[in-house]
């Protein structure tokens, strides 16, 4: 293996490949930062250009774009409360409050350290643990996916700890929205209101922009007279870079745990960065000694989500390269590119074409390092630009971008309408103190839960009691236990604090 790693390293470090990767990382970051242009779309846009390249150059370019796009989502999440991609949803929870407190630059740098670090941990997992991890991933069948989503829903308890009832209502609302469209199993048409475009369901990204961005823009616009003219506050600070570094590496447990969560969720086909970042956020909050500071601008929240989402990139390559099963939608596109290059994922990639495969894997190390440099430099300038532009120009520009962005999801005007309606609903819900987190969580998890439930039931049909299949498989049992613990934790915490108060 050592020899292959060496030849692979030599294959990456050519001027051409370096330039392609630099382009990939930067273009990916820009695309990721623009709400609406997701990692999937940015990878898909570049694929045709890679057909004419040699396999190594083509693949490393695509990998670099993927990394960059997942990271780029953090910029808009932090600066304007808009997750640039669904993988940065959790980054808004603490990143945006940090920006409001004038610590936007620190948030961006923290995200940069965490993202690059998470990506590097992910790469090591990809290189050294691919085969065993892929085997574990295969043991997750429909019943396990069902229980994962149930576990995922317990995150609502942490997201909406101040008002659990509103959180649950929000989660249920999200689940309901997720049912619009063609049923994933059975193909029934549900709640499409006669609009053909709704057969494809409500687009998560439209809802994300609507619920996160629009209400915030309306709020800024509404407060213009009272405030100074800038949308984002700046406080003159020194030593930001060092503080950001310490945020991530001083107590590295959060960073390491989040990266591992990210990589593992990435390995599971059908679950990606959108779930990983929220799970990591939840675990960071649960492990923290001061969980109540999460959601008010705690840098550890940003560390968790950004380390996790960049680790999913490499995690998603695990089942792709070892088994030919894409772990996430962008990985599926890279699969297509592999096929058209004449490479067949699976054991062949690790024997005949091992030099290409390892070059591709190693390129993630390089891409993440580049991402770090571009992130620090680009982050500083983007932060400056956003803070210089007066709100009366910034707000309309961003609203304009959100319209372009939601149209570009699949070139459909309905997605823009959904985004705008979502914006109004989101504004009302915000006024009523509903957190948007549980709603999008329901929207993300709904389809996975439904598929897991129905497919699991169909699998169990030949048994005397079909439902038993959900309670007898070992991994399912483990997941049920984790779910119970996760759901019980907020109750336990509350009881404990009450007891302590009693003692005092």
């Amino acid at each position: 293996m050592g020899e292959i790693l060496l030849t692979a390293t030599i294959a990456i470090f050519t001027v051409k490949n370096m330039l392609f990767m630099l382009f990939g990382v930067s273009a990916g970051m820009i695309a990721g930062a623009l709400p609406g242009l997701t990692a999937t779309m940015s990878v898909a846009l570049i694929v045709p250009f890679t057909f004419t390249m040699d396999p190594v150059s083509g693949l490393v370019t695509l990998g670099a774009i993927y990394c960059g796009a997942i990271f780029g989502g953090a910029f808009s999440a932090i600066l304007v409360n808009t997750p640039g991609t669904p993988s940065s949803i959790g980054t808004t929870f603490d990143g945006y409050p940090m920006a409001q407190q004038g610590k936007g630059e620190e948030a961006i740098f923290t995200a940069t350290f965490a993202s690059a670090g998470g990506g590097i941990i992910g790469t090591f997992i990809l290189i050294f643990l691919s085969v065993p991890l892929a085997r574990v991933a295969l043991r997750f069948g429909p019943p396990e996916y069902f229980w994962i989503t149930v576990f995922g829903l317990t995150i609502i308890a942490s997201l909406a700890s101040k008002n659990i009832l509103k959180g649950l209502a929000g989660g249920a609302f999200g689940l309901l929205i997720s049912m619009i469209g063609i049923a994933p199993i059975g193909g029934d048409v549900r709640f499409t209101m006669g609009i053909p475009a709704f057969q494809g369901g409500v687009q998560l990204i439209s809802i994300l922009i609507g619920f996160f961005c629009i209400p915030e823009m309306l709020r800024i616009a509404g407060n213009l007279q009272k405030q100074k003219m800038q949308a984002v506050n700046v406080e003159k600070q020194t030593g930001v870079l060092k503080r950001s570094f310490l945020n991530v590496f001083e107590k590295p447990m959060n960073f390491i745990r989040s990266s591992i969560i990210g990589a593992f969720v990435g390995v599971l086909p059908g679950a990606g960065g959108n779930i990983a970042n929220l799970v990591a956020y939840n675990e960071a909050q649960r492990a923290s000694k001061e969980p109540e500071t999460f959601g008010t601008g705690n840098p550890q929240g940003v560390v968790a989500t950004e380390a996790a989402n960049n680790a999913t990139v490499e995690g998603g390559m695990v089942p792709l390269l070892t088994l030919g099963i894409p772990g996430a939608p962008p990985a599926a596109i890279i699969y297509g590119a592999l096929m058209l290059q004449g490479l067949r994922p699976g054991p062949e990639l690790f024997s005949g074409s091992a030099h290409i495969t390892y070059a591709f894997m190693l390129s993630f190390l390089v891409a993440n390092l580049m991402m770090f440099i571009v992130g620090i430099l680009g982050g500083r300038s983007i932060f400056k630009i956003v803070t210089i532009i007066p709100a009366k120009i910034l707000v309309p520009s961003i609203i304009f971008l959100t319209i372009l962005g939601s149209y570009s999801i699949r070139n459909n005007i309905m997605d823009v309408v959904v985004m705008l309606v979502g914006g109004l609903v989101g504004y009302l819900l915000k006024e009523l103190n509903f957190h948007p987190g549980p709603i999008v969580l329901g929207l993300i998890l709904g389809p996975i839960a439904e598929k897991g439930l129905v497919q699991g039931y169909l699998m169990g049909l030949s048994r005397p009691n079909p439902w038993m299949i959900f309670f007898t498989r070992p991994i399912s049992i483990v997941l049920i236990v984790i779910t119970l613990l996760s759901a019980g934790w907020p109750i336990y915490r509350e009881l404990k604090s009450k007891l302590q108060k009693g003692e005092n």
Partner: protein
Amino acid sequence: MSKRLFSILLVSVLLISLFSFSVLAEFPEKPLNYIVCFNPGGESDITARAQQKPLEEVLGEDVVVQYKIGGGGAVGWSELVNAKPDGYTVAGFNLPHIILQPLVREDPGYATEDIKPVFIFQATPNILAVHKDSPFETLDDFVTYAEENPGVITVGGSGSYSANHLGTLEFNQEAEIKTTYIPFTGSGEAVPALLGQHVSALMTYTTMGIRHSDEMRVLAVAADERVPAMPDIPTFKELGYEYVEGAYRGMAAPPDTPDDLVAELADANLAVNEMPEFKNQLEDMGFQILNIGPEEAEELIADRVEYYKEILVDVGLL
């Protein structure tokens, strides 16, 4: 005076432009929009992408791939039927999808007849595959077990009312067995379910059989003849079952697109199909290359509509 001069000028400009238009109106004279209705990375996308460059060479104009995804293709097709019929908007279309959706959905946003086929360029026949550690060594083993244990065998496949779904029903009828079909969203999601042995078998496409040949055993292929990329796999017909099913993919235009433009696009498709490099690339991936022109395609679709109606009525789904 100047007014008159101006009108003369205007008229002559108009005349010239009219004249030059009729002379220069060589189709195509601007980029073509190629709508892909499925996720990037899937069969429809990969093959449209493979066509893109060669089509540009043949047509001498850019071919721009545009994604309109959702509803198992219905979102894109409902836009296609409302697009301008000038030959510059085309979309990938799939059989049996464009037949089954209007049959089982109240309003998918288009009618089967609205989709004007230009050319069907490839197909992926269904295959029946099991895990490499499965006790079913042959199709006989599979059928025998299903006869003795009705409903116990689970067969995964891509989607509801898809070629895999209908194929499972057709084979159940033909072999007089009962199996449980479990739909997954796309072939990509069905494969891990088999590799993890959560389902006993897959009714999937030839492409998946090629991709995962190390991990799965293909029992039979539902084509008229053996598929070039898997020459050792028998057809169902050889084994005594009248069962041929799969997905056909092609290019379609909006209704009322002039026939001469359709013919020109069909010629371009044919030319691409005849490029050895393109053909080999697709065949290696497990696709069957087909040359089905506009009229033939229309007939094929009309035939299949009746055929599927019958099956759906037979199994009680319609």
